């Protein structure tokens, strides 16, 4: 209840001051104008199409980058010599900011989905690799011994022992990567790629429609917030048994 006081107060203040002083601006809009812009934008259906573009790129990049990261995480987690050998190359590549790959990928793919997905995949690869590897390494050693006693081959050791045992923490990795995927998707669209919500946000600013700009900004915020909330809820219900450490809560 108390959490609503300040936001509602700010909105009221903005609305009243906008009405009182009759501000017309290229950079500000009153809450009621933002609401009206959101309403008219919703009815055109553009918002739906733009959201679909952003989400498609984010999900594809997440699946590709996360899948590759998970594969490498399992290999490195189960084969310690391999992880020792690859430590230096990984530590050398990891600090490259994902957005720095944009000009390279842009040269190769030009504008469009492929470029955006490649950058998202690059960005999602690292959190899944790092958290995933520590999740696999953290598996109860007796489980690995059991799998050896049972004479399981490498593949069934991965699918029957390692992945299920590490699942709660792997989900944390997935949640982090999902947040990263949305952030990077919107960033790439704002910076370069003429599609998706980020581009729509940029267009609204360029065409001096602050009400629409704030409406889209709030919508992107809602999207990120609900994604995070849904995944947190899923984590709580699915893995209630395995008190997952709060990494970024």
């Amino acid at each position, binding site marked *: 209840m*108390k*959490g*609503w*006081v*300040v*936001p509602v107060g700010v909105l009221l203040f903005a609305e009243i001051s906008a009405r009182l002083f009759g501000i017309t601006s*290229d*950079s500000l809009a009153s809450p009621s104008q933002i609401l009206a812009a959101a309403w008219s934008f919703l009815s055109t259906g553009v918002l739906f199409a733009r959201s679909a573009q952003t989400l498609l790129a984010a999900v594809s990049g997440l699946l590709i980058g996360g899948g590759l990261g998970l594969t490498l995480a399992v290999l490195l987690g189960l084969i310690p010599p391999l992880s*020792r*050998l*690859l*430590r*230096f*190359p990984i*530590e*050398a*590549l990891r*600090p*490259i*900011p*994902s*957005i*720095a*790959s*944009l*000009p*390279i990928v*842009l*040269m*190769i793919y030009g504008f469009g989905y492929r470029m955006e997905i490649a950058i998202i995949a690059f960005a999602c690869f690292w959190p899944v690799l790092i958290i995933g590897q520590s999740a696999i390494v953290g598996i109860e050693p007796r489980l690995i011994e059991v799998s050896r006693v049972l004479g399981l081959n490498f593949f069934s050791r991965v699918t029957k022992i390692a992945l299920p045992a590490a699942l709660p923490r792997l989900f944390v990795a997935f949640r982090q990567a999902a*947040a990263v995927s*949305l*952030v990077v998707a*919107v*960033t790439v669209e*704002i*910076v*370069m790629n003429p599609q998706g919500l*980020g581009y729509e*946000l*940029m267009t*609204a*600013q360029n065409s001096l429609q*602050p009400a629409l*700009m*704030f409406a889209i*900004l709030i919508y*992107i*915020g809602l999207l*990120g*917030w609900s*994604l*995070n909330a849904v995944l947190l809820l899923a984590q709580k219900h699915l893995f209630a048994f395995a008190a997952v450490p709060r990494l970024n809560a």
Partner: protein
Amino acid sequence: MTRIERTAWSAASVGVGVLIVAIWQFVAWKQFVSPIFLPGPDKAWAALIEGFKSGSLTQQTFATVQRMSLGWILASLIGVSLGALIGSSRNARDYLGPMLEFVRPLPASAIIPVGIAFFGLTKSMVLGVIAFGTIWPMLLATIHGFASVDPRLLEVSRVLQLSRLQVIFKIMLPNAMPDILAAMRLALTIALILSVVGEIMAYQGGLGSHILEASRAYHSADLFAGVIVLGIIGLISNLALTALEAKLLRWRHP
């Protein structure tokens, strides 16, 4: 594992890195990938040396590091002091907490159009975006660290009749320090990303503008040189903060 074994593994790991560069050189030399997209490590290295010799790359690197550090320091100061104010008062936490949690998942770059609307494509816009985008991890970590103080410590402070300032500096801040330092490390990574994003968009010099220009002109060697420098900046800043963290938090592991 003995020290000799560990050194051997590290050496082998560096060897793998060298091997990867050798494969890269081979692929570039045989032109399996068009040299327009993929320069060999020799060309990238030459561009790197040339860039630092002529001073242009040095200047861009300096501009980016300056922007990143300035935005990060600004965000640290504001984030930690605001976080201390909010975190040390139960009322402030109740009133402001939910709103902050809502803003946190917002992509920091989404604030760029708003920044442009207010400041135009200027240096202060880029700096403002960096500061605004990096402030959240530190603000929330500080609030969390201040809020999670063991109640018994607060009781002790009451018995000792410490003033509110003394409680903040002697009990709450040390308690929040591990969270704050971890958040500062994360924030520095975000600051570097936002510097590059800002430079790409606003064309205000720096490595972001440098790599974008190189890519537009298909000067892939310059482009790779710029990306390598960015990686090194990320690596060094991360190592420095990890070392600082270990030093400042030594009291936790006697």
